[in-house]
């Protein structure tokens, strides 16, 4: 019997796995019929999930944590049994600013770029015209990655620079009108700004945290329990879609599918750039290859590490200026559901790590780790500033930022 699941998403390239699971029949093979609900704001994607218009949603991971903790609205527990991908975002600056702080045409060194931007930010602040940087949502990985990098570069977000919310499709407009001086956004919206000549890509978020958690597949926690077999079937279909997605032989065809108006609604050429890790950084230039710009499949990229949820909690506390709470940390950790991921893939031969939590940012080179199933090697997952996050000391990590 076929089971129906409606999936909410925002038009971004990293909504790729559910879309491809549907388009290539991987969902159907698992007995699922997927329908999609496309929206243009995270607030609406979330509303539809909470009020049952969708069964699951493509969601920025920090928003799943914030919703569970009741930030901005009454708490509603969400559950994320699958990470839709790591990274895939970039920092784009206006051509004028990029010319002052970066080498347009090359991805910058994050430390050097941070130092140059800090100088610029101080000058602009002194002149009474603080730099404005756009992110897609207060509770987004974009916001946390940008803030992490700025703060580690000696730039205080909200004080030295202004961080404002801009809907992804309007980032290029906002750069053109001077509303913002730069933005951290997902694809294809950096490339769209480059294509119009109003932006220059200077950094990939993968340069800030080599294996940073990005979107998750989110359910309402009670819905995940009620529809557990369907959710597990979906996880298997998404893994197959991931294998298809990372195979270079399929890039062009997948870019054409994702670019369609009912999905991302963008130029297939720009979508292809993102999924092949080849980005045009400045209008008219040749694409630059940055491996693992998007990271959707290898190294069990979709495994919901509890330590990732906990890292997101540390950043929520940090930027919402909250006090550490053991109960909140626990609730945030429970949003990620490795148990469901394991149960879905047990016996399939797919790779399953032995642990459900790890020290984030601790690996500087490929390292074999114990696996429950399959052989597993994790590559460099470091933060650009060399720090690491030990989930055994959430409170100490938060205190270290004070």
């Amino acid at each position: 019997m076929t089971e129906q699941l409606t999936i909410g998403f925002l038009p971004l390239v990293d909504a790729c796995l559910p879309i491809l699971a549907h388009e290539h029949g991987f969902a159907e093979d698992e007995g699922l019929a997927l329908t999609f609900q496309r929206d243009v704001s995270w607030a609406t994607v979330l509303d539809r999930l909470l009020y049952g218009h969708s069964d699951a949603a493509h969601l920025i991971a920090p928003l799943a944590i914030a919703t569970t903790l009741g930030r901005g609205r009454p708490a509603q527990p969400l559950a994320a049994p699958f990470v839709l991908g790591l990274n895939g975002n970039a920092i784009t600056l206006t051509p004028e600013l990029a010319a002052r702080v970066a080498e347009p045409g090359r991805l910058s060194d994050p430390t050097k770029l941070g130092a140059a931007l800090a100088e610029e930010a101080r000058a602009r602040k002194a002149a009474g015209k603080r730099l404005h940087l756009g992110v897609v949502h207060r509770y987004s990985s974009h916001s946390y990655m940008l803030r992490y990098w700025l703060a580690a570069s000696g730039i205080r977000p909200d004080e030295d620079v202004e961080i404002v919310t801009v809907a992804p499709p309007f980032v290029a407009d906002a750069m053109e009108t001077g509303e913002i001086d730069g933005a951290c956004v997902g694809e294809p919206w950096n490339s769209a700004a480059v294509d119009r000549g109003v932006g220059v890509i200077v950094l990939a978020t993968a340069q800030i945290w080599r294996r940073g958690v990005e979107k998750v597949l989110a359910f309402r926690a009670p819905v995940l329990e009620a529809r557990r077999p369907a959710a597990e079937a979906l996880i298997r279909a998404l893994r197959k879609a991931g294998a298809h997605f990372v195979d270079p032989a399929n890039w062009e065809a997948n870019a054409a599918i994702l670019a369609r108006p009912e999905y991302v609604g963008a130029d297939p050429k720009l979508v292809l750039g993102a999924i092949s890790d080849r980005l045009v950084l400045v209008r008219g230039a040749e694409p630059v290859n940055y491996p693992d710009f998007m990271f959707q499949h290898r190294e069990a990229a979709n495994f919901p590490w509890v330590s990732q949820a906990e890292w997101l909690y540390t950043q929520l506390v940090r930027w919402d200026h909250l006090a550490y709470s053991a109960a909140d940390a626990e609730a945030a950790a429970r949003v990620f559901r490795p148990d469901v991921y394991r149960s879905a893939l047990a016996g399939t031969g797919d790779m399953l790590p032995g642990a459900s939590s790890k020290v984030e940012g601790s690996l500087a080179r490929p390292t074999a780790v114990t696996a429950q199933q399959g052989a597993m090697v994790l590559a460099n997952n470091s933060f650009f500033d060399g720090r690491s996050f030990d989930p055994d000391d959430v409170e100490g990590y938060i205190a270290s930022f004070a």
Partner: protein
Amino acid sequence: MRIAIVDESASRATIIEEGLAQIPDCQIFVLTERRGLLARIEEIAPDIVLIDLGNPSRDVLEEYFAVSRVLARPIAMFVDESDDDAIAASIDAGVSAYVVDGLAAHRIRPLLDLAVRRFNAFARLQTDLAEAKGKLAERDAIDRAKRILMKSKGVTEPDAYAELRRKAMSSNRRIAEIAEAVVTAHDLLGPAGEGAG
């Protein structure tokens, strides 16, 4: 009470505005432009903001409500849990409401109900319009099919129609579908230009 309606569809905003105008002591402001939205909201200082779910400015607006120190009275999403049905109805209708802190639920509820009714009315209007357009297209196809049959078989108009109807009944389809098939077949197989008028 000051109400801001944020909607990029000017015709829908007008329909909502008309509905809310029935409520006494209400000042209504319609904002259809994305540019300068936050500055306008700041100027208006609304007690209630209604915004359609399809509006790309929702995240921008929520962020503004969350952090703005300019607002003397903080605005939050209307999520009084006792009124969860009302919120579910508004989400179903496609509208979300943000309400200034301290505004009593009994003042918000009738307003939200009205907005929901108006949103639903607008959706019905659009469905009706789409249906009417569909019906016109169907009638056009039937007329063309009749002319094709009259010309190729030399029958009268009532006979041509009777033939379409007979075929529809025997194949358990609608007359419009049969007519579409006749027109398509004719366009593909028939001499160029014939029956196209």
